[in-house]
């Protein structure tokens, strides 16, 4: 079983390919996407996505807009921003909107894996809590 289901979004195709291969090797389930639109589409198709690794600078819908949309449609999915140096401010803005964390490109692969695992754990924890709350509500009603 994989450590986490990850949607990897970056407009640089070779980068996505290399990262996919490397992260897959480290037991992550990677779904590649190359734009904000594609990312949203893939999220709808693959309900099991836990973490999105999102490039900040992309043509068309950029990272921040995509993040806003993801958080609106899939509030439980955790997003890690991936950025070049020029967009550190944007990444910080992203954190304010609700991103889990941000990493600088090129990132240490192990750091990235650690962050993803952490984010996935948070998401699961989150879901767990929600589940517990629901169960509690049901049992209370029955009682």
């Amino acid at each position: 079983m994989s450590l986490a289901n990850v949607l990897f979004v970056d407009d640089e195709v070779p980068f996505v390919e290399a990262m996919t291969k490397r992260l897959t090797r480290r037991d992550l389930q990677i779904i590649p996407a190359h734009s904000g639109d594609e990312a949203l589409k893939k999220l709808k198709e693959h309900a099991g996505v836990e973490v999105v690794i999102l490039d900040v600078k992309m043509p068309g819908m950029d990272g921040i807009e995509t993040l806003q949309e993801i958080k609106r449609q899939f509030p439980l999915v955790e997003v890690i921003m991936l950025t070049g140096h020029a967009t550190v401010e944007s990444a910080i803005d992203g954190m304010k909107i609700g991103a889990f964390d941000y990493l600088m490109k090129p990132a240490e692969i192990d750091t990235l894996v650690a962050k993803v695992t952490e984010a996935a754990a948070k998401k699961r924890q989150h879901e767990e809590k929600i589940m517990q709350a629901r169960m509690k509500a049901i049992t209370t009603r029955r009682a």
Partner: protein
Amino acid sequence: MPFDTIITRLFPEKLARDKHYRSLIRNMLLTIIIVSLVPMILVSSTLYLQFRHSYKEKVSDHLRELVQKHKQNIDNYLQERLTDIRLMTARYGFERLKEEELLQRNLDLLKEEYEKAFVDLGVVDAQGYQKAYAGPFKLADVYYGDAEWFKDVKQKDHVISDVFLGLRGLPHFIVAVRSEAGGREWILRATIDFVAFNALVQNIRIGETGFAYILNRKGKFQTTPLTQPISPAVIDSSEPPDIWKRMFAESDDVQVFLRKDRAGQEYVYVEAPLKNGEWLLVYQQRASDAFADLNRSFAVTTMIMALGSAAVIIMALALSRRMVMRIAKADEEKHLMDEKVIETGKLASIGELASGVAHEINNPVAIMVEEAGWIGDLLEEEEFQGSKNIEELRRSLAQIKIQGKRCKEITRKLLSFARKTSLSVQDIQINELIDEIVGISAQRAKYAMVEITTRLQEGLPPIRVSLSELQQVMLNLINNALDAMEKKGGKLTLSTRAENGFVVVDVADTGAGIPAANLHRIFDPFFTTKAVGKGTGLGLSICYGIIENMGGRIEVQSTVDVGTTMSVHIPSVESESPAEKPNDHREDNQA
């Protein structure tokens, strides 16, 4: 050249040597002097010339009138003497006047009436023999047949002779009247006292050098000029100036003119004809005396002009000195400003370029690093284990990763340098920041054998900047200083102070210093003197960009082998900075 000497003495050497400023000074001086002096000279000269003309006219008119009156006096005097003799002739006749007693009585009467005008009286017959005589000399029966006056009186009925010495050997002249008695001609003659007549003529004296005399048609003096003694010899031998000989024939009126004598002395001459044009009354005065007032006013005017000119020249020098020095200062400031503008513009355009390069290079580098990582991942597969070159491949991949990181570092710094927007700003107490950074650097300083000293002024106003940026700047400056002292060790002094609304941090080291040739390049991106791989040459460019963004500036002072001081000026939050209190410095030493 005197102009050069004046400029060298009055102006700072730097200006006096510069061709541009020299010509500026020269033009300014000439313009001021010409514009001021020319109108002054023109107005003064015109006024003076007008005044001189009027004044000379006035003096001439005055002299003309004076001489005219004097001429009338003399003419009257001579006419009266002639009338006296004529009356006597008509009243007494030849026979009675032959009586010497009557003649003597008449002489006494005349002397009484006219004091010393008459010297003697004589009655002369047609042949020229003196028939009767009254007077102080023994002249009875004297023969006058050959005398000039006798010849003249035989032709006219009366005569006033020229002055001559005659038998008595004293200067005198004769007034004679011819009459007829019983078909016989006879003559009554009187001798007029020369001294009295001379005194009458000379009775016109103006100024110090004015005097009058009489000349006859032959140009001989009839009275003694004042400058010579009354002596027959002199009168007889003195030759009058040539001009009088000419003047005789020319005019009946009083004339005024100027002439120079042989010694070059100028005189005013006024001449008037006497005795129906037989004599000429001449009045003579030195021009300098006659026009003394004019000369005095000329001297005063000249002095005022000279003083005025001197004042104008001094003012022109002072004014041009002041103006040229101001212009030189403005030029210098402009020059500095230009340099700064060029430097700022250069750094700004380099910043834009750097930003573009950094963006574009970052993604490819990331891909390269990740691909290398992927190869590394693959090499871990079993099939490659024990392969011949596996170690070499791993080393090579490690090198790619290292160089990728290096690229990452460079792009990061490039972007920091180019960054236009500042990060979140906050009020910062600079002293606290310095303390923190000294703490961070302490370990490195220890290895570099550098002693860090802080001199922090208490009560500095806060500054409103991005903390991380300022940390970056201070760390960079400290690291540079430590690098400069790495070989020999030394002292690093960090001091803070308030200055004109700025908080200033001085980072002073005792390192190798920066050669003057490099001093203006140290803020240029990629300029470094460190070994390849040790420095990117971006540190100070970034610091420059950050501090400029904060509205501050970085200044550098450096002496080779003595050390370098970097001064960072950051605007303080308070508009008014507190007065500097050097005694408030607290000192800390940290090894």
